[in-house]
């Protein structure tokens, strides 16, 4: 409870500000319409009209909430109109990208820590890779992967998600694998430990806190990547596709609902990773 209260308070504050902003932003349209119709509206008449527009500039919370509710619970979860279904599609993509990102990130980190030449040549380019807008590469990733015979849309989506999520893992793992101090390393040297033993018994366990800390960032990045990837892969399904269609067909509420569904999914994923982290930390003897 003591953890929820501050969050609820902040959320309440946001809702209040949001309503105020909704009235303010949507009023333009109300006044414009009145002017086109040659009538005038008073403030008191205007306010209710800002709450129910089909194409609000900023839909008030209850409109988004209602649309979200309808999307989540208004039909069977297997229906293509269900946000649960599309959320699941996005979730699947996210997990594939996440797994790929972890594998690539960890593998690169291991070779960077092991080989100086990898550190010197690859690390700067890993940073540069993140300055390239992935959306620019997306179409090429699709075409190239279809040329390689991967016609499904899952693989390119996962590649795009992994492109964003490998980086935090890489950076943290490099830090983590290098976190053992000289004394801890020297200890193993006095035992005449092999390099493999040093890695397994010292570097890897020492990197775990860094690893888990990076997972929260990486899973959020992977989700963003998946949603980005859902546009150029044909905008067939998934939350990204719903956002696009909502925008394209003048249904901002569909877009807002998809956006919030994505945020909820992000929240769930981050919390799940946090729980896993907690479990792992307890197993590794970290004080609560």
């Amino acid at each position: 409870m003591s953890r929820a209260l501050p969050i609820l308070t902040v959320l309440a504050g946001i809702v209040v500000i949001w309503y105020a902003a909704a009235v303010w932003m949507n009023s333009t349209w109300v006044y414009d319409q009145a002017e086109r119709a040659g009538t005038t509206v008073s403030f008191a008449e205007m306010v209710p009209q800002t709450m129910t527009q089909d194409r609000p500039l900023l839909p008030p919370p209850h409109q988004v909430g209602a649309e979200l509710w309808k999307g989540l619970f208004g039909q069977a979860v297997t229906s293509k109109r269900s946000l649960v279904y599309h959320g699941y599609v996005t979730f699947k993509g996210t997990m594939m990208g996440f797994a790929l990102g972890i594998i690539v990130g960890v593998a690169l980190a291991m070779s960077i820590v092991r080989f100086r030449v990898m550190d010197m040549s690859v690390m700067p380019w890993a940073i540069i890779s993140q300055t390239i807008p992935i959306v620019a590469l997306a179409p090429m990733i699709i075409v190239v992967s279809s040329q390689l015979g991967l016609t499904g849309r899952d693989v390119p989506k996962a590649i795009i998600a992994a492109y964003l999520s490998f980086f935090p893992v890489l950076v943290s793992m490099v830090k983590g694998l290098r976190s053992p101090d000289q004394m801890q390393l020297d200890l193993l040297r006095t035992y005449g430990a092999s390099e493999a033993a040093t890695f397994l018994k010292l570097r890897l366990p020492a990197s775990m806190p860094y690893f888990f800390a990076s997972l929260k960032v990486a899973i959020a990045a992977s989700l963003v990547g998946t949603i980005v990837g859902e546009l150029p892969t044909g905008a067939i399904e998934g939350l990204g596709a719903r956002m696009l269609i909502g925008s394209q067909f003048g249904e901002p509420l569909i877009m807002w609902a998809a956006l919030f569904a994505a945020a909820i999914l992000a929240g769930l994923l981050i919390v799940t990773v946090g729980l896993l982290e907690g479990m792992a930390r307890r197993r590794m003897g970290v004080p609560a």
Partner: protein
Amino acid sequence: MTALWVAVAVWLGAWALNVALAGSALARRPFGRLLVPLIFGATVLVLWEGLVRGLGVAPVILPAPSVIAAKIAVELPTLWADFAQTILKGAIPGFLIGAGAAFVVAVAIDRSPFLQRGLLPVGNFVAALPIVGLAPILVMWFGFDWQSKAAVVVVMVFFPILVNMVAGLQASERMQRDLMATWGASYWQSLWKLRLPAAMPFIFNGLKIASTLALIGAIVAEFFGSPIYGMGFRISTEVGRLGLDMVWATIAVAALAGSALYGLITLIERWVTFWHPSQRH
């Protein structure tokens, strides 16, 4: 096919050279630290060129680096105008505004653990909002020109910097804070003289992450509406026109600008946090 084998040979040779360089004394000097990644980058380009030529990849799918370089040379004025629009008007002001706002908010909520515990989880949440969902909304609100791009950037960089700032403000050691207390220092005195300097390594960490986000944000936002120049406009338009050489030319500019921004922040970091153990070895 020969082009491919030549490229592979060059790749192997350059890699061997890099292995030797990385092991040599040169690797410890700034020149060597620059040289090795540059050689690596060059070999990637050679391999790319070899692949494209050797396998006869269509230029509308992946142009060769030489073609891209030629395009850059011809299109410099356009590339510059795009750069000015997207980076100078969109990314950098957005970055500065976002960082400034994060700074102010961090200091404002610093005294309230309650607000922090409320705001930071919500912040994490917002930070995970996909930019492709936000961008159309912000374009709708702030118009087509750079203002909406700057707004996207503000939203994207705000939370990473805020989270790091808040963590940084708590980074001073208890003993260091207790010292301030024994001297009867006021809140602002201990903020300026202790907690901000101690927070600097964290703040720069946040700024570095935010710098790449700023670039991506400004470019992607242009996909959802823009004037007819700008790097995002160029990329999205030229893909549709099969002008892949121009797309890659713009990507090259983006990578260059991103690295420069990142490098600049790293330099300032080195200058400001000279005292931090990570900066001296």
